[in-house]
């Protein structure tokens, strides 16, 4: 296995009882690469993401993260290993402000000998937050505002800014712009470009063809729980991808998905 592979799955399989949600998924992601996962509803995209991030336990198969075989017991393990996920349902605390949310569960503290009553280092957290926001070009004028009072785009940006603040080793976004308006989508896409420039690897689950062709290097298509195509952006176009998604075409080497 070469050194520049961030994530590799071999024969990754997930069955929910008799339902084969994911079958034999072989997937690789290289350093600095942005890959899109596309496919119809129920094609296995989110199932695939949930196995990698430890939200669910796989039925079979192996996952390698930077060459090491991994088996995450839960999303926390994955996060500790450096996989930062932006879920469809945002995991933000509505009544807290931006720095609080970015640092939730990993606060910067002083006087650690006080145990649960150790003091929060608000100053350091605010500074790191502003650095992170500037790095990702996220526009949130007032970081002391609670999440409750923010637009959907700003919330999404806060969730994404976490990845920049903590130097994650892999970012996974599950439909980050599904619920956003045009301008907000543009803002999120800009953040993704910033991550690309910074050389941070990314897996993007998306339905939006234009967005995918704008942002990523490679497109992996899922159909009925199997990977049915692995396309470099230069070698394909929208028509082609739709043909793979709907089942009109199947790429060589993936015939068993048909």
């Amino acid at each position, binding site marked *: 296995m070469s050194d520049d592979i961030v994530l590799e799955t071999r024969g990754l399989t997930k069955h929910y009882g008799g339902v084969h949600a994911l079958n034999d998924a072989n997937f690789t992601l290289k350093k600095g690469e942005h890959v899109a996962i596309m496919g119809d509803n129920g094609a296995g995209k989110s199932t695939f993401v949930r196995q990698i991030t430890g939200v669910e336990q796989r039925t079979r198969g192996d996952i390698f993260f930077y060459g090491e075989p991994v088996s995450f017991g839960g*999303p*926390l393990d994955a*996060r*500790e290993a450096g996989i930062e996920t932006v879920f469809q349902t*945002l*995991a*933000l*605390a*509505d*009544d*807290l402000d931006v720095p*609080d949310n970015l640092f*939730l*569960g*990993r*606060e910067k*503290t002083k006087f650690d000998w*006080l145990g*649960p*009553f*150790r*003091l*929060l280092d*608000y100053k350091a957290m*605010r500074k790191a937050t*502003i650095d992170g*926001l*500037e790095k990702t*070009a*996220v*526009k*949130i*004028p*007032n*970081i*002391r*505002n*609670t999440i*409750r*009072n*923010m*637009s959907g785009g700003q919330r999404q940006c806060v969730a994404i800014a976490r990845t920049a603040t903590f130097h994650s080793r892999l970012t996974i976004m599950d439909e980050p712009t599904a619920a956003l308006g045009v*301008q907000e989508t*543009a*803002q999120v896409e*800009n953040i993704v470009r910033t991550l690309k420039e910074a050389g941070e690897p990314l897996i993007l689950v998306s339905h939006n063809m234009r967005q995918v062709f704008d942002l990523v290097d490679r497109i992996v298509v899922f159909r009925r729980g199997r990977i049915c195509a692995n396309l470099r952006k230069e070698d394909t176009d929208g028509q082609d991808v739709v043909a793979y998604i709907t089942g009109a075409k199947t790429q060589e080497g993936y015939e068993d998905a048909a």
Partner: protein
Amino acid sequence: MADATQGTGGLTFDARKRAWPNELNIFFALILIIFAFEAAGQLLPYMKGQSFLFDTRDRFDSIFNEARLRIIILQVAIIGIIALGVTQVIISGGIDLSSGPLVGATAMIVMSFAQTELVNGGPNPKAVFGDWAFDLPLIIPLIVGLSFGAFIGAINGSLIAYTRIPPFIATLGMFLICRGIAQAWTRGQPVSFPTESYSLIGKGMMPVYLFIALAILFHFILKYTVYGKHTYAIGSNEDAARMSGINVKRHKVLVYMIASMLAAFAAIVLSSKNLTAQSGMGIFYELYAIAMAVIGGVSLTGGRGSIIGTVLGAMVFGVIQSGFTYIKLDAFYQLMAMGGIIIGAVVLDKVRQERAAMRS
């Protein structure tokens, strides 16, 4: 398009700007209520122009009616100590109904360890234990009381966190259990005649000083420590808190333990102030404490509220109670009016929240 959103566009981040604090609204409400009673004193014919708080007949060197102020603060202080704990429980998304009976049970138990041997030259007529339990150093009843509170709180918290039964049910069960303990402890007999050192805890204005000290302590803890931040986070979005690596279960146990220890401390202060403990002590206290928190802007859905709010809520509570007596409202109607005010406070908060949600 890319240019318009590229970079922060010269936007400067403001790390200081804050929203209008809800506590100020409650403070203004408090002022308003005081003046409403003041006006009632002037307008109601049978009041003969008496003043509510600005009566200087008793003390000419002060603009306040200090006697009434003192009564208001003293009335509020002990339930206020309970409300400090209840505030934390509600912020974490729970509720604690067991604090009132816990006051009764703790008072009975603690007083049994705080009795003095000789009463008016004769043996203590209310002795619970044998000779060994007389005239123990003050630290013993304090430790016994706080440990009992911590124990009950740990059961509450563990039930809620690990068996996932609703906090309402868990603490309702504990409500009955604690009242039962209070009654069974001496089979309904009061426990009296504490040592002199014990009687100092609740003497004079001590309850007020203790309330203020604890309020400052817990204001600081909720605002500036990890414990406080996680309490808000759990009440705000429990799943997000769990995903962020917070040990939600352990934290909940800790929150309920602290709340019950505060209630137990309130029992110590109350029994010391009254120089006796009765199994019926603390009736309705749990509801009054919840009311203080709710009037103070603590949201029953969790995630929002503050100690300052609860202290102001306690003051509103005390002023209204005292005001009703002052305008000679019949005690039977007082409860009804109090209930109406609590419902009104929650409705007002709800309306305000929905307006805020509309704006954004």
